[in-house]
């Protein structure tokens, strides 16, 4: 296996020129400790497949109410159905609150203390709204907006009257889950994964039942029964494959129907898994 130290001055010039040449946004100047080499491996097909995505879209179109979904596939590409359509987040916005809170701790050079986990754990594990309100009061709405910006959201708008009415799109949420390793400070990342993979059974509908045990699932569900809103975001990992799912719905006629809508999308995306 060959290994090469990249001359950093050269890389700086090359990357700056490269970033200037493409439309993708990037830092104004690119230079850092960067090293490169050559590797070998056996690639697997991008996951989920185009066929699986199409099947999930066909299924969602048969369901009552409004619905959209987005995935960031194992190659980092966004796909889905009505990925920019706006929905209320319901409780999936708690993932953004979690990120904001952990970023706040990092900014204050603080570790996790009992007072922190006494809010974060119930907020994610049992989807406590009181804990979420307390977290939001601590971090402030600006921190949530900053997380939206850092994760590349384009459809975010703060909720009017209540945080559960935060506006989002499936594309935004799939990007957020994909960006979690970058957004969450490294020393808190394991804790965040612990929280998002250990949600209590009553909140674990939709994707987890059809993904486990083959996949490690890090997720959050949300629902607003009066509006028929059912939402879910999930990050699925297996071996070297990672992809994220966001399913947003409204107007679902019943709780079981809403949960089955999301489960159906998940099942079709996971069909013929590697």
């Amino acid at each position, binding site marked *: 296996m060959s290994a090469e130290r990249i001359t950093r001055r050269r890389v700086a010039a090359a990357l700056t020129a490269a970033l200037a040449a493409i439309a993708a946004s990037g830092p104004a100047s690119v*230079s850092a400790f960067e090293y490169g080499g050559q590797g070998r491996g056996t*690639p697997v097909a991008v996951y989920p497949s185009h066929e699986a995505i199409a099947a999930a879209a066909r299924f969602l179109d048969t369901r009552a109410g409004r619905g959209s979904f987005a995935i960031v596939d194992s190659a980092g590409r966004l796909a889905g159905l009505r990925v920019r359509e706006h929905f209320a987040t319901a409780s999936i916005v708690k993932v953004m609150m979690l990120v904001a809170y952990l970023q706040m701790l990092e900014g204050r050079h603080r570790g996790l203390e009992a007072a922190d986990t006494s809010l974060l754990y119930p907020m994610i594990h049992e989807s406590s709204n009181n804990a979420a309100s307390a977290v939001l009061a601590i971090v402030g709405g600006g921190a949530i907006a900053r997380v939206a910006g850092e994760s590349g959201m384009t459809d975010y708008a703060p909720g009017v009257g209540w945080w559960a009415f935060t506006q989002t799109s499936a594309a935004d949420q799939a990007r957020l889950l994909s960006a979690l390793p970058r957004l969450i400070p490294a020393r808190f990342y394991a804790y965040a994964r612990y929280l998002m993979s250990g949600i209590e059974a009553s909140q674990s509908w939709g994707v987890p039942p059809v993904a486990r045990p083959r996949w490690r699932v890090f997720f959050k569900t949300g629902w607003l029964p009066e509006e028929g809103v059912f939402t879910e975001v999930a990050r699925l990992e297996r071996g070297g494959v990672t992809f994220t799912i966001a399913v947003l719905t409204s107007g679902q006629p019943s709780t079981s129907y809403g949960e089955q809508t999301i489960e159906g999308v998940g099942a079709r995306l996971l069909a013929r898994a590697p």
Partner: protein
Amino acid sequence: MAIALMTAAAGAPAAVSPEARISASATPAELTIGARLVVGGVATIGGRGAAGVALALQSEAYPFRGFSTVAHLASAQDGSFSFRGVTVERNSRLRVVEEGASAASSRDLRVVVDPAVAINARRLRPGATRLSVRIRHAVEGGSPSSSALWFTAARGTRLFRLAAITPTRELAPGVSYASAVIDPPARRFAYRVCLNPAWERAMGPPAAHGPCPEHDFKLPAHER
């Protein structure tokens, strides 16, 4: 900062001379941590090599809060001197001064110290190749974990996609490690790992002190 000397030029210290001039250079001026350098030059008085001038090698390491003496010797018969086997573990400024009341000093010699890096790619199974990087670097109090950004590109292409972001961990003071299991983009591929660690400003040239790219990037053709 650790400084070590292997040999020193012979000669007896001479009387302090206000006319002494010292010219010096460091070779190499950029080196990998653990490597040794030589600070050599000549002490002159009135334009001629001055023998037996008592000299001190002084060093000021990043973050450059003051020089301290790290070695002594006296100039040879022809005024030359050579501090050999000097090791520096972070970016430093070196200078050679005449010991005693004289203010004679060489110009500051800037030495850039690069981390020692070993990278590896190991095929694990279909869809999974482990990339790893092990870095020996300056000891920076605590060296908190940072992120390693991994980019991959199919061989022959110039588009590097962000494949993973993983935390670094310190195996021992001054030794950091990061790894990522990625789905290879092709059977043969190129990869890059980029870091903005806590010790970043203590090492490497200024060009290395910038942010890693946070998105996919494409190299220009001449960089293939």
